[in-house]
């Protein structure tokens, strides 16, 4: 798997946050982290078509770099509708989960775990977290509130995403939301809103006040 293709695919999946379901997205990201880009090249276009998910012009370029070389069906890709602008995110974010105080009332175990894993790690900048809820809830109160991790990193974005997803799943988050933001990434409205309402959990070895997007706000 070429580095450019992996990097483009990571950014494509990053930009699809909030547009595909968490359940689909974390698995696609795991496949990418596991080197299953050929499989992803087959499944992702189909998913975009079946879910009627459109792409921006920039994202078509990412598709081309990421998936074409791995055998994506160009006819299928041609059917994906083009978006000219993204709608407002379907979610709102807050730094604290006021409705679900019970989740962390005895301590933030995930923060402890992430600090043990990522504090001082090379290639990792800020590790932040935010609570996400849908603008129009459809389920019981609190059931649709998810914690979103926002990690700035300078390298190995796909692998880091896969690792953190697996950690989150192991501690009970079935559909983890892990957004590993590369340096220089221009965040879409979803990530801008998430970063604006996030709290800092820990910092890796990279200078959080350098080029990384998390600190560039």
């Amino acid at each position: 798997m070429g580095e450019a293709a992996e990097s483009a695919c990571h950014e494509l999946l990053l930009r699809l946050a909030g547009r595909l379901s968490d359940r689909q997205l974390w698995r696609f990201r795991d496949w990418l982290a596991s080197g299953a880009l050929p499989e992803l090249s087959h499944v992702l276009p189909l998913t975009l078509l079946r879910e009627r998910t459109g792409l921006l012009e920039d994202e078509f370029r990412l598709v081309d770099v990421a998936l074409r070389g791995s055998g994506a069906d160009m006819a299928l890709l041609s059917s994906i509708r083009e978006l000219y602008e993204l709608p407002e995110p379907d979610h709102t974010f807050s730094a604290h989960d006021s409705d679900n105080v019970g989740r962390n009332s005895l301590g933030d175990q995930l923060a402890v775990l992430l600090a043990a894993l990522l504090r001082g790690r090379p290639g990792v900048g800020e590790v932040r977290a935010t609570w996400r809820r849908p603008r129009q809830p459809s389920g019981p109160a609190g059931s649709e509130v998810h914690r979103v991790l926002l990690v700035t990193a300078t390298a190995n974005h796909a692998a880091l995403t896969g690792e953190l997803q697996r950690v989150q799943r192991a501690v009970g988050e079935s559909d983890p939301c892990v957004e590993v933001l590369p340096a220089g990434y221009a965040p879409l409205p979803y990530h801008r809103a998430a970063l604006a309402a996030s709290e800092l959990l820990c910092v890796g070895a990279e200078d959080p006040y350098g080029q990384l997007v998390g600190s560039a706000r």
Partner: protein
Amino acid sequence: MPESSDRVALPIRVHDFLLACAGRIDDDALTDARELLAVAELDRAVDLLTASLVAGRIPMNADERDELRDLVHAVRSSPALVDRIIVNDNAMPPRHRFTTGVMDDPAPDGGVLEAIARVIEVLPDIRALSCVWRATPAGAVAGPVPQRMVLVEVGPDGFPPSTSYRVEQALRRAGIRASVEVIQAGTEVSDYHQDALAVSRRVSLRQVTGRGHEADGEPGSSLFADSPTPRSVTSTRRRYATGSGAHAEKRAVADATNNTGRWQPRIASESSSADKEGDSPREHTDSARVRPIHPEPVPEPAAQVAVAPVESEPPALPPADPSADADLSSRERELLRQLHEELAKREGEDGTPAEPSSPPGHSSGHWSANRSGHFSPSEFGGPSWHGTVEGAADQTAVNGIPPYGSTPN
């Protein structure tokens, strides 16, 4: 597998393949694939499964890879997907540990029956239910443990993919996270499921409204044992070897009394034949890893697993309105049940023979083999599709709704 491809419905083949992958890929991948299968998106189910196997670097033996290739071909997906599957005929599937918990651990069946009562009531031929905790992680992207497993046995008139999906959805709606493994009577059971069944806790279905014919009660009559008996994998194999005679005997009875098998003989049966005839190393390996419940192919293993001596208790009554809200609370169900009992009592007082407290066939212990002894809702003005088993294939109620144009008996 060209022959099995011709004879077995494609959704059932995919369902069986997913069963074979249970314990090897993560539970969420299984659940998602089963959902896609149930909602008739077979291509996506097979793609998800294949990509999960590749990404998780999960080895398969050559037969499994070939079957997966057939499935990919059948759903018109890309054959290239299968090329990256790791093939290793010597790789052993992971061993898992199962438990029902100790001391104050939560029971694996806690809240399960309440959550899925309505599904059990309306879906056809659900015969047994067992619950267990799996204490070991499954797959490359494992979720937390313990993982609750709900094991469901369906008869030949059951729909395994639908049952798996509907039960899982009902559990999820109730806030219960579980893997739902649906095994059709008469099919092979993998070591994974045998290990789970051996320690699982059997849940009685009698208290579910309209479930007077469940298969529990008679040891050996079902895949699902009544008494959990922890044992090693190897001992399981011996146990089934010694118990095969009893299965064969019951099957002979069932073959004479039942003729409503919905599905054609399955891969399981075919490979059983191959085991008897074949002498290649691979066939030997496969037969050691996956055992048939029955020693020979069983085209129509129907009512033999439904044999159930029934306790002397009022028969479970179906709801007056089968299309009622699936989310009835337990209190509402109880009120409904009391109402039916009162109606039954009044009809009895009016001279109409009411349902006996012990259903026909109780003395023989074989009443479920002939469902004509069931409570008939039509006697109380209710629907009649819970009646006899004859013509069940034609009269199958969909989600508890009778076929259009049917008339009460």
